[in-house]
């Protein structure tokens, strides 16, 4: 009995140590493919349907290009798309940075000064309620036709959700936690850096994920008003010249940019916020 056990045991150990790890990695890839399979099939189905409709009904290309025509547009206008992507990316990124920075600083001021919150929160709401498209011409008149109005509009669009969430996040600290810090005779600075800021991070990232996609939208909308470069300008130009495949390709690029920025923020969130914010503790 003992002999059979000892002769079997090493073999068993080897499989136990080796197999599960390889299997788990392979099965993880497999399960993620299986998870995304319905979505991928649905997208592929939509594209195929689109292609069939364009073929079947002989839809003219200027009205709606086929997916194949859009693919050709990517190939033919690669340099144009790339050259116009970079300014839009720059505007969106700078707008994201400044809009969120101002929002976070303002939120901190509001949390420590109820008077400032009473005075300026309504102002922030008023600015928020002005349609961004209506704001674009005003900004062009104010600061000229360069990169500045685009950054301002991309920033403004990020600003409000971040302000609201950050104020809520900084106030989310439980009274018991503040009591604890008082018993420990912690200074307001220590409470700020060790309690309030970390507690606000899940709220901040929720807003940053919204801001990541809307900053691209802000930059593109700003480029519609008298701009000669950027994805927004390219959209206007392609539309006026009936270059529908190029128009569609630009829209695909813009959407991809927004999605990539969203995933970049999500990745940063996963690195920074490793705890569960839902818990009361």
């Amino acid at each position, binding site marked *: 009995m003992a002999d059979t056990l000892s002769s079997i045991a090493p073999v068993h150990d080897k499989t136990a140590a080796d197999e599960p790890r390889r299997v788990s990695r392979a099965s993880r890839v497999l399960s993620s493919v299986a998870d995304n399979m319905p979505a991928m099939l649905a997208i592929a189905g939509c594209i195929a349907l689109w292609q069939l409709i364009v073929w079947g009904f002989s839809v003219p290309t200027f009205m709606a290009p086929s997916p194949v025509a859009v693919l050709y547009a990517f190939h033919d206008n690669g340099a144009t798309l790339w050259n116009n992507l970079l300014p839009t990316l720059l505007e969106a990124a700078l707008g994201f940075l400044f809009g969120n920075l101002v929002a976070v600083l303002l939120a901190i001021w509001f949390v420590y000064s109820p008077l400032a919150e009473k005075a300026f929160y309504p102002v922030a709401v008023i600015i928020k309620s002005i349609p961004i498209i209506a704001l674009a011409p005003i900004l062009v008149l104010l600061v000229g036709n360069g990169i500045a109005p685009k950054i301002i509009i991309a920033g403004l669009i990020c600003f409000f959700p971040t302000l609201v969430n950050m104020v809520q996040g900084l106030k989310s600290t*439980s009274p018991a936690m503040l009591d604890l810090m*008082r*018993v420990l005779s*912690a200074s307001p600075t220590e409470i700020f850096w*060790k309690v309030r800021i970390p507690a606000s991070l899940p709220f901040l990232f929720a807003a940053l994920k919204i801001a990541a996609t809307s900053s691209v939208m802000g930059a593109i909308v700003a480029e519609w008003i008298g701009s000669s470069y950027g994805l927004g300008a390219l959209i206007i130009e392609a539309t006026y010249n009936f270059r529908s495949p190029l128009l569609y390709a630009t829209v695909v690029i813009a959407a991809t940019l927004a999605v990539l920025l969203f995933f970049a923020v999500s990745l940063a969130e996963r690195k920074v916020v*490793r705890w569960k914010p839902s818990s*009361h*503790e």
Partner: protein
Amino acid sequence: MAMAQPKMDLPAQDLAPAAVSVEHLDVRFGTGLSQFTALKDVSVTIPKGALVTMIGPSGCGKSTLLRCIADLVHISDGSISVLGQTPQKAREGRDFAFVFQEATLLPWRSVLDNVRLPLEVGRRAQTENYADPERLLALVGLKGRENALPHELSGGQRQRVAIARALVSRPRILLMDEPFGALDEITRDKLNEELLRLWKETGTTIVFVTHSIPEAVFLGEYVLMLAAHPGRVKEFLKVDLPSERTLAIRDTVEFIRITAHLRRLLEEC
């Protein structure tokens, strides 16, 4: 030599006869017509090294009294002396630690980093005499969970972390506000036994607020009962049970006699 006790120049807290001495304490909240008296003429002396449990009907101000001692609530009248000092001085000197009903752990910090929190904050953190956080975690039965995050622990484990954190500064007084109130009975029994063991090992004075009569009697060397509307002292009684206690003591006649007595008193409150 290392064990030698300093005999000269004893600090004020060593000369003080009591751990906590409350005299004619009044606490009122609000002003004018909406004023509400939480505590009225409360006087009580908590001897050094004692374990005092505090019980009373809801609204009797037992938590308020504990929070007054901890310098978390403003006193309207009367005085509190904590080891011969004002509560504020005692707080700044870390003479007491507080355990809340919720564990109040920072959810983004590991268990070990939560226990270290008292070492990292506070203006005058004299941390050289502090206890080793890792040893404290072993003491409360959480060896091996140092790197876990609070949400990975059970409610009872989180409260153990909170107790370890409170013990880091080697407090001379431990103030506990219904610390096991949110836990299930089995966990609570176990933690009660462990608290008694900790009390014996450390010699810390403990003031323990609870809403359970059996818990108050099982833990308490003394039971302080408050009455409500307004909050005032109803009874301060020495629990007539042996100091070596196991959970089985709750089935003895003496234990039941004491709990029955307290229950009658509570009905009068």
